[in-house]
């Protein structure tokens, strides 16, 4: 069902937790549909210095969250904003079709966290 990369990120998720002294926070999803993703960031000089996630959801939700944190660490916020849910799925060698629309929201959570940072910065 899932690619090896998805299973890897599900089994060994990177960057789980909360960034200390985070200056950006994003949460998407809700308990009705079964996926909630929360991403916290520390941005310094326009660069994402640190990023962590917590996710309630299926393997796809956890893997995309983990993957997105890997993809953006050290990137500028402009670069991070260009990352789409689709790009995250591709980085994981794809997701099953049913998962594409319902559990693939990690980029949205990231963007929300960045916007949160931009609003308060």
């Amino acid at each position: 069902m899932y690619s090896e990369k998805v299973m890897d990120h599900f089994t060994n998720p990177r960057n789980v937790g909360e960034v200390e002294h985070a200056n950006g926070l994003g949460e998407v999803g809700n308990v009705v549909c079964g996926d909630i993703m929360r991403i916290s960031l520390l941005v310094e000089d326009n660069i994402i210095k640190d990023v962590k996630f917590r996710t309630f959801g299926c393997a796809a939700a956890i893997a995309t969250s983990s993957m997105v944190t890997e993809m953006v660490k050290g990137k500028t916020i402009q670069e991070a904003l260009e990352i789409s849910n689709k790009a995250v799925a591709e980085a994981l060698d794809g997701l099953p079709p049913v998962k594409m629309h319902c559990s693939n929201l990690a980029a949205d959570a990231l963007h929300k966290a960045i916007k949160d940072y931009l609003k308060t910065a």
Partner: protein
Amino acid sequence: MRKVYLDHSATTPVRREVAKIVSEYMLDRFGNPSSIHSYGQEAKTALEKARSQVADLINADAAEIIFTSGGTEADNLAIMGVAQANATKGNHIITSAIEHHAVLDTCKELEKEGFEVTFLPVDEDGLVSLEDVKKAIKQETILITIMHANNEVGTIEPIEEIGKLAREHGIIFHTDAVQSLGKVPIDVKEMNIDLLTGSGHKIYGPKGTGFLYVRKGIKLKPRAFGGEQERKRRPGTENLPGIVGLGLAAELAGKEMEEERVNQASLRDKLIKGLRESIPHVRLNGHPHQRIPSNVNVSFAYVEGESLLLSLDACGIAASSGSACTSGTLDPSHVLLAMGLTHEMAHGSVRMTLGKDTTEEDIQYVLDNFPAIVERLRMMSPLYYQRQKESV
């Protein structure tokens, strides 16, 4: 790694004795029961023996058994068949909100055809109330279809009483007994059952086999056309190896029922107790004791079912979940929601269904591994994090 299969309500392995006889009928005794030569006559005899074996398990007469390709087909035949054959008498059907989709979706299809369907609610244990059934009955009611045991939470419905009520009102009563067959005693005569669905692959018989019991005298419109088989009510060359296997599986299930009931219930209770003791925020779903001996259904707050399943699978443990994520839909189990669970708890449900080969060691293995899995996922969960923060 140890392999622990705890998904016997999804399907069971075929038992050796059954697989052996299926092979024999595939390779050597392969005749078509419709043929008049010796191959055919041997097949015909075997077909009728299997019919008796199945009938005996539910105290029916052999002539009242129609073989089908499975439980889904039998449910469709029962509901559509009765509705269409009795449409002149009325157009109202009563069922419950927690039926298997083979019943629910068939009822919904009949709604499109102009039938009116009442979907009865259930209480928090998953029980249909007799009062609700009584209140739902009206002049136009032609069929009541309520399952015997629920496939997700294992709750056993009061079908004997519902059957009695139906009989008193002259309404036909069907029950989907796919999950109770061979696990708890069934007597169609005592229980006032007019039609009953069974499936082979849930009782260590072959997949692609099932049956519908239809009490003598009940009118049924066939769903398929084109042959004299099964008295024209289910045409097509009989799946004889499968049917012979189903017959044997039914006979053996009957013989071993009492022993299995005691064994599995004791392992089940050990599993429930162990999970409750080692993991906080667990809820047992389904009726506390009016449930089939094989079913454990628990919800873990703050985590999602598919993640749990895949983590269990990584430990060699096979289970299932009522999470929406396991079915590709957005809503979690209609059964758990009908029982009043929150979406979160419904998403976090895990069903473990024991079988005749489940051992004490299997259960211990599950109990040894389960807490860490839940803990790991909870550490990742924003819901759990929030709760921890709030309770500080």
